[in-house]
């Protein structure tokens, strides 16, 4: 059962791409991988104002992830609380996970030659902190939500 999700309050998001850099800086990532992404639909006129809202996407931490079983070394794992993550010790950078993921979420980290993807900043979460992107979101539009067990 997934325990967490990232929720974007699109009304508050200003499309500043801060979250993308907060994430990269926290994970010390080189040029190349970007683990979350802000995008928007083309502008449409609403009551005379050309408008759009922003979308946030990172790994979906699927209930039943395609990336986990395909991984030949068992590096891609799903935790009890639903967080899907890559054990960097085991990853060999074959990128089978990226091929299996419907959204090609895992990316290569050219600095290590291994796969990398959003892990909900589990090291922070385990210390009782919020993920990097949420903690530093410019307008506090991004939330880390702990879902209630039903």
């Amino acid at each position: 059962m997934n325990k967490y999700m990232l929720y974007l309050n699109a009304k508050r998001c200003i499309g500043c791409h801060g979250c993308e850099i907060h994430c990269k800086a926290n994970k010390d990532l080189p040029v190349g991988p970007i683990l979350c992404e802000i995008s928007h639909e083309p502008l449409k006129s609403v009551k005379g104002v050309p408008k759009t809202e922003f979308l946030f996407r990172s790994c979906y931490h699927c209930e039943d992830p395609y990336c986990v079983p395909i991984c030949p070394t068992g590096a891609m794992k799903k935790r009890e609380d639903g967080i899907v993550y890559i054990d960097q010790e085991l990853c060999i950078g074959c990128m089978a996970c990226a091929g299996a993921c419907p959204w090609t979420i895992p990316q290569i980290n050219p600095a290590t030659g291994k796969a990398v993807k959003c892990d909900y900043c589990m090291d922070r979460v385990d210390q009782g902190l919020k993920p990097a992107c949420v903690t530093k979101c410019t307008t506090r539009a991004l939330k880390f939500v702990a879902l209630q067990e039903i």
Partner: protein
Amino acid sequence: MEKTVWSMCGMCSVRCPIKVEVEDGKVRWIEGNPHILKGSLCAKGSAGVALHKDPERPQQPLIRSGGRGAGKWEPVSWYTALDYVAEKIEKIKEKYGAKSIVMSCRGGPWQDLIKAFCYAIGSPNFTNHDSACGRNVHHASKSVYGLGRKGFIYDIANAEHLICFGRNLLASLRVAEANQVMDMLDNGGSLTYVDVRQTLTGIKATRFFQVRPGTDYALALGMINEVIKQEAYDKDFVEKYTVGFDQMAEFVEPYTADWAAKECGIKVKKLKDFVNEIGGQRPRVIFHPGWMLSRYNDSFYASRCLHILNVLMGNIETEGGQLFPKTPADCGVKGLRTFSSNVPKPEEKRADGVGWKYKHFDKGPGLFHLYYEAMATGEPYPIKGLICYRHDPFTCFPDVAAQKEALDNCELLVSIDTHYSEFGWYSDVILPESMYLERETPIATQKGLKPRFIYRDRAVDPRFNTKPSWEILKMLADRLGFGDLFPFHTAEDMWNWQLEPTGYTIEDFQEKGFVSLTDTPIMYDREDLEGRFKTASGKIEFINETLEGLGIPSFKPYESPKKPPKGRFRLVFGRSPVHAHSHTINNPMLHELFPENTLWINKRIATRLGINDGDWVDVIGDSQMGTIRAHVTEFIHPEAVYTVHGFGRQVPLQSRAYHAGMSDQKLQEGLLLHMDEAGGGLCLCEKFVTVRRSSRNPRRRVEL
């Protein structure tokens, strides 16, 4: 080893307070100071780590060994570099007098140190970048309130309506302000946005006026006219605190809403509805008076009208309006000791003419661009040395070729900066400053409802042979024989020297990174604002007699902006939230997100010119040309093309930024001395450029 360091972000000039976590001498984490910003930072703020790691910045003092701009440098020690600069300064002093040296900076909370140094040399010619930025707004504010542009803070979070004329404040980000705007919108507030194109701010607006470029003044006049007609203004406030209402009303008489709507190309009903709406919302209505308004021939007057609309709303010293920033004195605390308090101001006339030739301009920093005139003509006296601290005139000011020509009359050009500025690359000496995570800065006062003292501590030691500016200037002062004016040898000494009159010590900053001077917000009595307006009359002046006395009208008759000739466009520029002008273009992380600028062009026009979205286009000034990709959109006025400022850099050692994108200021040929005579700001949007589909677009070809 882990430690937490309090600092202030240095990625843009907002200088957000930050908390830095350091592990084994490496920056591990930066977040917004939780006591002030609750952790929030923008993209640039987090990318500070990448700047720290980036070796593509000056790593030791450099003295030019080839011709200016040739890029040949001799790396030298600090002693050699400072001795060299000191010797050159002494020589210029001897030959032409100390006044021949100009010192410039970016402005902001630490400019007092630069000013003190300039005065200590014996020159009155201290200046900053503001004539290519906010001078029009500043002078407009002075002409209305007798107070500068920082004379008010805006209580946006509690407002019911915010109106922005091209003030794209969700892209030209200030983290705290962006949160205020979003809070206001969350509370059901309205946002009216006026611009020649749609922007990140405009998409959040409840009302959008797309106006013809250069017609802001017309719209503001029409608004004043309609506010008076609908009697939507605060009569008691106007009665009590202002002078010149009737004369103003008479002046705006012909500038009706119908006229303005026609001139700006908007619907008159929308304009009248707007005025009706704010009439019901005042005093919780804020007209943003503009920030970077060095744009059109009448930007001073446009800003003046926006200040006046605030007054008509009666929004002063009331919740959701404009508030007086309170000072340490308001909290019963003595202010910080200033560096300039030790140094007498030289009595010579300023070479930019401010204070004697131009009596209506603020003497503080004067007007930078006018020094080019003095350099070129030797009048009123020769200018032979220019020291720029964290200020890159080649990026800030228009027409780089004209600037170089004037600078060639100088015998000393020094750049003190954390990165290679375009000016630095052309200068004689580069004195590299440590980037903000590697240095301490003096304590600053932040005025506000709850004023505070705040500081920046050193998070990590410099990676390269760089120094903080206070140390560079102190060492230079020692060499020039006035080191005793800066009686400190360590940052700690400096802070405690600054703090001495206040009764605080630097230890008091350890807990939160700042000292709050009051627990409760301070408000003045709105019924008793007598003495708060620093005009000649002591009132808010719709008609400013001092200006009128100098032959400068308080309102000038409106002149419709020229239409660009066929095939040409008005070049307008702006900001992206990812970059802080040129400062961040070479940052590895930010470059990855936004490597080059594009040219926004109206879809209908683009079709006519055979330009598709993503095509390369040539943008041509008089003799200069830039080639970038087109962003074809219906959301820009057909008379304008737009680009993000700061690109097109030409320092080869910045490998990412080198020749990436196009520089708007190089195309602004002939505009270096084109200023708004009343406001002193340059008119950077008074340039037409030609746009054509570039021959660089791929064609079918064989490639073996």
